[in-house]
């Protein structure tokens, strides 16, 4: 090879390596934008609100006196709404995903359903709120209750769960299915004894990521009327409700008026007193920590379940 040719070749390789490094830097910057923005927001909230995140903040009801205000009714409301959401969305979402992936015949109807599910994930959340206002609050007459909010958010995260479940079903090797059939298993035996346990990690991840989204949702919950001052807790089953002097039923709490964390935060942001803005920041910290905690849990669960899989 001519010395000149070698030189041009080296120059070419060097140039391509430069491009490689260049993209590495651009990619890193692009990643950092997201991380730094979140970090900056979180630190800003933390600086404004850290002084207010005390045990009393979690055990006090909202009050006109900012220093005595707390998020008791809001976090209890959020927790109960999430409970309803999980119980509604998980069985529905997982069943729908299993049907679409394992049972449904491949034809234009399933294609249509598939396109719909994917698009559903992109519908603005306020639209779910309007749907819920008409359907749950008025037609089904659940009122402005924990039940209405939980079902609304369940609809909202249904696509997330369906997509995540299908992804993890697809990741299971086809040989597992064939082996089950070869041993004479029915489709349901194959699904319930093999596919569901193996895909549990992915399903749980989907569920928790969906929940992390739902806990921060504001618009659909405002639409069904949760922008409200609430200084009481939903009735605890089988205890005496002071408002009625009767023993509360097992499901009475489902119909209780409620508020949730992001709405309590929104409420405080619009107040004139700076002390309420601190409360809002503290609530923001609580929401972000809850969301990050849920995501961490998802990662840990996935790790645990994958480790135990032995194919």
């Amino acid at each position: 090879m001519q010395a000149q040719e070698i030189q041009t070749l080296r120059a070419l390789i060097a140039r391509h390596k430069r491009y490689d490094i260049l993209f590495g830097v651009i990619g890193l910057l692009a990643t950092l934008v997201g991380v730094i923005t979140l970090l900056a927001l979180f630190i800003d909230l933390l600086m404004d609100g850290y002084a207010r995140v005390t045990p009393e903040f979690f055990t006090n009801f909202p009050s006109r006196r900012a220093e005595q205000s707390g998020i008791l009714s809001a976090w209890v409301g959020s927790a109960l709404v999430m409970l309803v959401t999980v119980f509604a969305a998980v069985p529905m979402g997982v069943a729908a995903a299993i049907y679409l992936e394992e049972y449904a015949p491949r034809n234009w109807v399933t294609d249509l359903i598939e396109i719909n599910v994917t698009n559903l994930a992109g519908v603005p959340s306020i639209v779910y709120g309007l749907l819920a206002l008409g359907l749950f609050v008025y037609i089904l007459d659940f009122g402005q209750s924990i039940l209405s909010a939980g079902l609304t958010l369940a609809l909202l995260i249904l696509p997330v769960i369906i997509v995540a479940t299908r992804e993890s079903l697809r990741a299971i090797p086809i040989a597992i299915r064939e082996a089950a059939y070869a041993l004479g298993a029915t489709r349901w035996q194959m699904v319930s004894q093999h596919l569901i346990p193996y895909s549990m990690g992915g399903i749980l991840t989907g569920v928790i990521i969906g929940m992390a989204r739902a806990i921060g949702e504001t618009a659909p919950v405002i639409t069904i009327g949760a922008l409200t001052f609430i200084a009481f807790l939903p009735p605890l089953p089988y205890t005496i409700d002071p408002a009625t002097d009767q023993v509360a039923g097992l499901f009475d709490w489902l119909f209780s008026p409620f508020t949730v964390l992001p709405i309590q935060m929104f409420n405080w942001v619009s107040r004139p007193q700076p002390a309420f803005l601190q409360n809002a920041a503290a609530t923001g910290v609580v929401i972000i920590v809850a969301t990050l905690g849920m995501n961490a849990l998802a990662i840990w669960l996935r790790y645990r379940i994958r480790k135990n899989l032995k194919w």
Partner: protein
Amino acid sequence: MFKQKILSQKISAIAGLLAGAVLAHAAHAGLVKVDGSSTVYPVTEAVAEEFQKAVKGKTKVTVGISGTGGGFKKFCRGETDISNASRPILKQEMEACKNNGIQYIELPVAFDALTVIINPKNNWANELTVAELKKMYEPAAQGKITNWNQIRPTFPNAPLKLAGAGADSGTFDYFTEAIVGKAKSSRGDYLATEDDNVTVQFVERDVNAIGYLGLAYYVENPGKLKAVAIKMDDKSPAVLPSLETVNKGTYQPLSRPIFIYVNRKSADNPEVAAFVEFYLKNGAKLSKEVGYVDLPAKAYTLALENFKKRKIGTAFGGEAEVGVSVEELLAREAKH
């Protein structure tokens, strides 16, 4: 409520069958539902907080925020017991209530005063007449009135930077009604926001800025803002907004009473009645505490009398009025 109870019973019954047990359960007794204006909200919230403490949780009170108009929509469908309103009920809302057979008792509970604010470094616009404010905000000013010296020749040659309330707020309705003379009639080329804290920041940062907001926002931001004294016309004295001038009725035309409307049928519920009476007895103290101005003491007594007599209807006949005293309103023949 009733249907919900049945539903709750059904669900409980199903669960009970599953668990092999019969369940007792409670319905929504002891709940007072309030909704409506965000302006009235802080006062009602304070009252609800104190009331629930006073009855030791025997009555639950929820106070929602859906705006005066949104509140009346729910109220006239019979969904709420009490509606918070930063303006009197309008003609079409009276109609809606009438069509659904909802009668109501109108009760003023406090004063809200709008404050015109400027930057503390602004040393020229310490007092303004209503006519000058109109010149700034009327629809005809759009794109034309852009300099302070167009308002008064002695003002400096400096750009006029306007802020104000967004079109969905009761504050906007009242300001335009009182200053321009017609509700919702305003120029559109200024910083319009539903969040008064944004107006505060805007005026705080710009010496040429002017805006208007609720008195509480001015009181809570001492040092950042300066209030403008308002003159009805050239000859009348300039009046600064304060608890005293609003309460006495001399701060005109930018102070207004705010109301609660009580569903006549709900008023027969002893818990709603107890809440309303508690409201009128403690409204003076609590409204001051949250940055509003209390009504003259006599007005609360009159309002309480009106409530006890269950005097239904409105004193306004579906139109907002500027500059009427509260005692006069309460004594008026009601319209339905």
